[in-house]
């Protein structure tokens, strides 16, 4: 493993460990984004039936702390694989020209 990958993994792990703490803190301060605020101002309700596999970064049946952490680990691994795969395919396109 290169020095850069090692540093990256440590950094990623740090973010993931922090995520449940931030989720808890967000709950305490009553976190809401400007988009939600403007929707409330104008009386608009979201209408989202699809919940996803891990609704709102939680694992059904698990407490918030472990649910958030597991969601973070699972999510970053899928994103890592997907972005890497897409980039690899994109970088290879047309590579066989001239072979």
């Amino acid at each position, binding site marked *: 493993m290169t020095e850069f990958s090692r540093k990256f993994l440590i950094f990623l792990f740090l*973010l993931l460990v922090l995520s449940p703490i931030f989720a808890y803190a967000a709950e*305490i301060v009553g976190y809401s984004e400007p988009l939600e605020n403007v929707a409330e101002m104008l009386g608009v309700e979201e209408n989202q039936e*699809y*919940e996803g*596999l891990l609704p709102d970064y939680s694992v059904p049946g698990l407490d918030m702390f472990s649910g958030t952490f597991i969601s973070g680990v699972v999510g970053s691994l899928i994103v890592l694989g997907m972005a890497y795969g897409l980039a690899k395919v994109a970088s290879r396109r047309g590579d066989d020209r001239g072979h």
Partner: protein
Amino acid sequence: MHIPDGFLDLSVAAVFYIMTAIVVGFSFIKARNELQERKAPVVGMVAAAIFAAQMLNWPIPGGTSAHFVGGSLAGIILGPYAGCIAMTSVLLIQTLVFADGGITALGANIWNMGVVNVFAGYYIYRLLSRRGIFLSSAVAGWAGITLAAIFAGIEIGISSSFQYSLMVTVPVMGVWHALLGIVEGFITAGVVSYIASSRPDILEFTAKEVA
């Protein structure tokens, strides 16, 4: 600023799906120039780190807050086309796995955070690059997220559920994210400066270091 289902008119959602599909498709083709194959893992790393960073909602007293978005950061590190691919991956997984952002609004969400934020951030960084890495990436991070928010404001503001209240939605989204975007700017500048000093070869374009 992930728009959920129910906010956008279907016609608005459709227009942004089409525009996004065109830019993402084009980026996929153009990314080849930015990416030697050895750089593909970096695209994965940047996307994964941005996904994790987006989970950290800033706990600001009073409640109105945001989280890091990272479109400008992705564009600056990877170049706009590969940056667009990284952000598209993040937003797609957030929507499909975590229901963060609506499926109908996915086109608009990728447009805001994966297209506008990435391309605007990248070109602002390039434009200001003579002013040094920290300043140019800070302004790019700030302006990129503010522009993304203004687009989100436009999209909901031209939708019937928001009673076509563009004059409310655009200022609320733009002003709040211009304020919160200062944090985005500092994080972007910190990360770009760190990479520039430790692994400048990773950056798509390195701004001049001002002494």
